[in-house]
């Protein structure tokens, strides 16, 4: 097991190097640079832009810039934002808690919906409930978040005026009001993301349970006279959830990606809105760092899913 993890980690190093090289070249080839605003402003002398380009090393050849970035990164220096003029890690650290809170809550919400609905639908396949659940699940993962997000805003914020649609990370209130305000503003973004996830997950849980429920050992359990509740929770669900857990782990990076759009709509100051504003401002070091974090996350989640799978299912061996 330990050898397996070590081997996987060693394989991860060249993959990360490759990813970083591709990301860096793509960003370098992309048009525009962070100081393009300066050129269209008649009040700023042209020398300023030239001096800044030089100061931030933008005039160096691509490979030199990549090497500088890589050596700094290895030493734990994530780079320096051209636009905010602070270290990139400070910027990212400011944003991560909010993203984790929103994504975590939406994931919990998705699981809270998907597992009971999926299991219930699987135990009564092709019933009315199953069909309604399947239809809703289809709608759930077919509708893009930018659409449901705006729909919710129009209905709950503008039509009914119940919920705020501008997310604020620091709420001045204290005590219960603090939690209440936080709860209120999180309802919409979490619902949008959660329902989107729940759609796909429900379908997955349903089919996993359906696979298991037909197996002989379930019939055996039933014939022993165990109650249906015990059969489902103890015998079926535990085994059916093995692939579901892996799916959740594998999907984590995708959720971060999906959160980018949701964060922009609700002005959630998370890592997703950071990457959007940095892209628009051509703030390459920030874009580079965030995308790199995302790709590290993909690799880490893959590894995590593999290990988890083996731990949950002893039939898998790592030799």
């Amino acid at each position, binding site marked *: 097991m330990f050898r397996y993890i070590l081997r996987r980690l060693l394989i991860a190093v060249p993959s990360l190097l490759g990813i970083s090289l591709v990301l860096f070249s793509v960003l370098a080839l992309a048009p525009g640079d962070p100081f393009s605003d300066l050129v269209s402003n008649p009040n700023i002398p042209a020398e300023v832009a030239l001096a800044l380009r030089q100061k931030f090393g933008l005039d160096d050849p691509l490979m030199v810039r990549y090497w500088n970035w890589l050596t700094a990164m290895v030493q734990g220096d994530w780079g320096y934002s051209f636009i905010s003029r*602070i270290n990139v890690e400070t910027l990212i650290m400011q944003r991560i808690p909010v993203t984790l809170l929103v994504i975590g809550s939406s994931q919990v919400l998705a699981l809270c919906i998907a597992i009971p609905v999926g299991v219930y639908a699987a135990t009564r396949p092709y019933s009315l409930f199953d069909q309604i659940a399947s239809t809703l699940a289809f709608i759930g993962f077919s509708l893009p978040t930018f659409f449901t997000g705006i729909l919710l805003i129009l209905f709950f914020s503008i039509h009914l005026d119940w919920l705020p649609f501008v997310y604020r990370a620091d709420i001045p209130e204290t005590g219960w009001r603090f939690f209440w305000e936080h709860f209120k503003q999180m309802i919409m973004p979490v619902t949008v993301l959660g329902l989107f996830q729940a759609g796909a997950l429900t379908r997955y849980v349903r089919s996993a349970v359906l696979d298991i429920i037909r197996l002989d050992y379930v019939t055996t359990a039933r014939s022993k006279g165990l109650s249906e509740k015990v059969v489902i929770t103890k015998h079926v669900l535990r085994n059916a959830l093995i692939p579901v857990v892996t799916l959740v782990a594998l999907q984590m990076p995708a959720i971060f990606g999906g959160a980018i759009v949701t964060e*922009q709509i609700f002005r959630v100051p998370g890592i997703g*809105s950071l990457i959007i*504003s940095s892209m628009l401002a051509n703030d390459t070091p920030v874009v580079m760092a965030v995308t790199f974090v995302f790709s590290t996350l993909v690799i880490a989640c893959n590894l995590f899913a593999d290990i988890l799978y083996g731990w949950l299912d002893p039939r898998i061996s790592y030799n």
Partner: protein
Amino acid sequence: MNESEIRRLIDQVRDNGISRKQFIRHMIGAGLTVPMAAQMLLTSGLAQAQTASNYKPTKRGGGGALKVLWWQGATLLQPHFASGTKDQEGSRIFYEPLGAWDADGNLIPILAAEVPSLANGGVSRDGKSITWKLKKNVQWHDGKPFTADDVVFTAAYAADPATSAYTSGSYKDVKVTKVDSHTLKVEYQKPSPFWADPFVSAAGMIIPKHIFESFKGATSRDAPANLKPVGTGPYKFVDFKPGDMLRGAINTNYHEANRPYFDTIEMKGGGDAVSAARAVLQTGEYDYAWNLQVEDELLVRLEQGGKGKTSIIPGGNIEFIQLNMTDPWTETDGERSHPKSKHPILTEFAVRQAISLCIDRDGVQKFIYGRTGIATANFLNNPQRFVSKNTKYEFNPDKAAQVLETAGWKKGADGIREKGGKKLKLVFQTSINSPRQKTQQIIKQAAQKAGIDIEIKAIPASVYFSSDPANPDTYTKLFVDMQMFTTTMPQPDPEIFMNQYLSDQFATKANKWLGRNSTRYSNPEYDKTYLAAQSEMDPVKRAALFVKMNDMPVNDIAIIPVVYRPRVSAAVNNLVAPLSGWDNDLWLLKDWYKNT
């Protein structure tokens, strides 16, 4: 009323022969607007009466929280590194300049005790030096006194090439010396009729010497205060998350009585312009939203919510079309659109005239921009005294066809005119932006009727407005026949604005296309007029020179003005927020309050 008469009147005011009021009344009689008349006095060196403030609150604070929404959040709070207005606005909450521009283009003292003028000795007779008197009893947020040292330091900080300050253009050619603790002298290399650039408005925010002294030059980027400002403004810094949230709290030692009104201020960033407009106009969740680049039709609909109103503030920004005077299709000395080349078709006046006749400016205003783009014949649209009366526009494709017919451009079998084997085909580029594509369509259709074939090209804004020397699609290169974009006029004085038609401003390979004359318009008369305006101290003559400059490229049809673009923002109904088209939205934040 002719020029000498106006001059005589101004002299009378100077000698107290007639009062300011009488003078302004005379001028109104002569058909001028109040701000225009007031400006004549200002630039002639006569102190202007303070515009009466409508500020009502009678005590400091007690106004609760002011919540403003900037859909592009501030990313840093060092005003001298602020590239876009979003950063200037963020800094403006905490920092103040010596003077600021009001809506009429008047200079209003902020940290200065008074606006320098000939009358108070602030402006020297030769126009080569200015003496600023500073307000006494102004304190920095940390309690240290504000003095002339801070102002002198600010100039040195910004002018230092190693600092690479975005404001360096305002300071690199002036000499600033301290006279006493609250007086300083600014010397210019040549007579400067427009002296109100350093220390004024967005580029003029004064930073504290005691905080930034050790972070001048190469170390400027390490200053902790770049993100934790210590200024003199109405609100003190509390907390900042770049791009997201900026918070401030009342400065109880603010240098003006009863100000500010609000206890805290909160500037939220991120999102998009449409939802920002909603948050103010429809739900009232926020008090104020900045820069609403939203279709007017939608704004009108949102306003019907009744919670807020939009403010449309005129400035000098203009959406216009440039016709390439040089040849973009063949290389001369290895360079497209080389200054020495001539455009094969567009050098003919009749063709340019025909294109101009095909542009339905009223239609563009009516169907596309609404209140946010007003049809105009002029490049220079504001302040009023610079507006030319010698230009006009007309939409008439039939007349365009006639003009071309007379000039010998005959229709071919495909409906496109040609002459001497050259087809009347043009490529017209702009950035990707829905109103611009609609405008392109309107023009293309009308031109088709006249027998001109216009090929439309739309480029992503991040490419089009970039400075990448390797990319052929940037707007400064203009490697096609014509293009359309908005150019901004950042100050009420057009001197810098009008340099974009100078022959020495040609965008060329040699200057990496950083020159501002992308039309490649060249007219010795224009260059001469510009040079004269640069040192003309007489405001009336100077205004006339700028009007003349406006008329040259416009009447030569090197450029075709389309609509001028006022600034649009939204505020909840009870918020009183004085705005100005010549300065940041928060230029007078100290006077913002809510009617209760």
